[in-house]
């Protein structure tokens, strides 16, 4: 179970965002995508999700091209972008339940309520989310990570709009996910301390790829 990307090339308009990009992601590995604004991080992430078709190159999941086995790949994939996918007219619990089930996962309300409590929204479950703050809305979206069983997490700027406590919790969630044999791809400048596993960095400015064992933080 691993994600293998080879010779990926993306062109937007007449600007080449990246080309000949190859990397592999195996269980217990965390990948950071770095690069200045406009360097193509979000495009790369959307390409990895299958939302954007690359101009060249292959993305293999379990050694099979993702576009030929979309159902298998999408069950294994958890994606959270800049947008929270939260409806203001639904309550926190309804939002969480809908988003969780739509990604092909199963669960009961008790697990979902526990997740909301853990993410710090105890007492807000039945509030319409339009009455919550930006950070709380982000927390509703991130509560999915607690109940999610997908092996591959792709998170685009997950730490935006979160306070210190929520940042620490999210770091802990990602670290636990890697510990449990999961994989994650993040675009963020926030460090994520891991207890075990391996961290890779891909820089889209100069296409350097660094990888290394975990160092204690």
């Amino acid at each position: 179970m691993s994600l293998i990307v080879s010779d990926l090339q993306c062109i937007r308009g007449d600007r080449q965002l990246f080309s000949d990009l190859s990397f592999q992601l195996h269980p217990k590995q965390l990948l950071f995508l770095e690069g200045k604004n406009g360097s193509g991080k979000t495009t790369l992430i959307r390409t990895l999700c299958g939302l954007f078709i690359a101009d060249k190159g292959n993305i293999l999941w379990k050694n099979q091209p993702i576009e030929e086995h979309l159902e298998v790949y999408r069950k294994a994939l958890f994606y959270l972008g800049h947008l929270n996918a939260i409806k203001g007219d639904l309550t926190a619990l309804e939002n969480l339940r809908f988003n969780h089930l739509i990604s092909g996962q199963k669960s009961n309300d008790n697990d979902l309520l526990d997740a909301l409590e853990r993410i710090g929204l105890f007492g807000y479950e039945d509030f319409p989310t339009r009455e919550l703050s930006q950070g709380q809305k982000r927390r509703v979206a991130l509560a999915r990570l607690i109940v999610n069983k997908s092996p591959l997490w792709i998170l685009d700027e997950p730490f935006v709009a979160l306070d210190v406590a929520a940042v620490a919790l999210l770091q802990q969630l990602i670290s636990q996910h890697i510990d449990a044999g999961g994989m994650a791809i993040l675009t963020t400048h926030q460090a994520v301390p891991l207890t075990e596993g391996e961290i890779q960095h891909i820089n889209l400015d100069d296409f350097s790829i660094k990888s290394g064992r975990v160092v204690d933080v």
Partner: protein
Amino acid sequence: MFNIFWMILKRDIKLALRRRSEVFTVLFFFIIVVSLFPLGVGFNEKMLQEIAPGVAWIAALLASMLALERLFANDYVDGTLEQMLLAPQPLSILVFAKMTAHWLLTGLPLVLVAPVVGVLYHLESDTVITMMLMLLLGTPILSMVGAIGAALTLGLRGGGVLISLLILPLYIPVLVYGAGAIAESRLQSGNIEPHILLLSAFLLLSLIFSPWATASALKISLE
């Protein structure tokens, strides 16, 4: 597969009921347009009966256009649509659920208020029943064909006007046969069966092609 269909259908209806004004806008638009005509053209009973089928259908077409723009726009803006595209189930099932919800919220109410048109235009009860039947067959086509336009114009500036230009010409067959059947039913020798069969054929065609076409259009719009 059916689970996700029910889930989206229930959610869309729940969302609409929490924001009822959007549902009532469509319904009142229809009623107001229909009741403006007698004020404009006079209360001649014969003439009103003549123009009733066309007026009712054109009002229905315009009313169903009103809510089309919002069919995917809200989900697009808040990121839900992105999550739907990444769902393991085929996108056409999800899209079909949204179309069904759209029809239940905007098409079905028009069928139910059709007797109001009957009263305003001095129609006989048989004609009103034909009108309800034709609206029942025709309004799902409006929702399904309209969804293709809504998906194609998603995220474009001035998308609302563009949808009308794209979709209204495609509504012409529904208008012709839908209004034709009602006019036919007022004649002694009228036979509405061909109209019913043709509209049913359009309905089946759009049932088969529209979810698939809309799903493809959404994928392009979100790329």
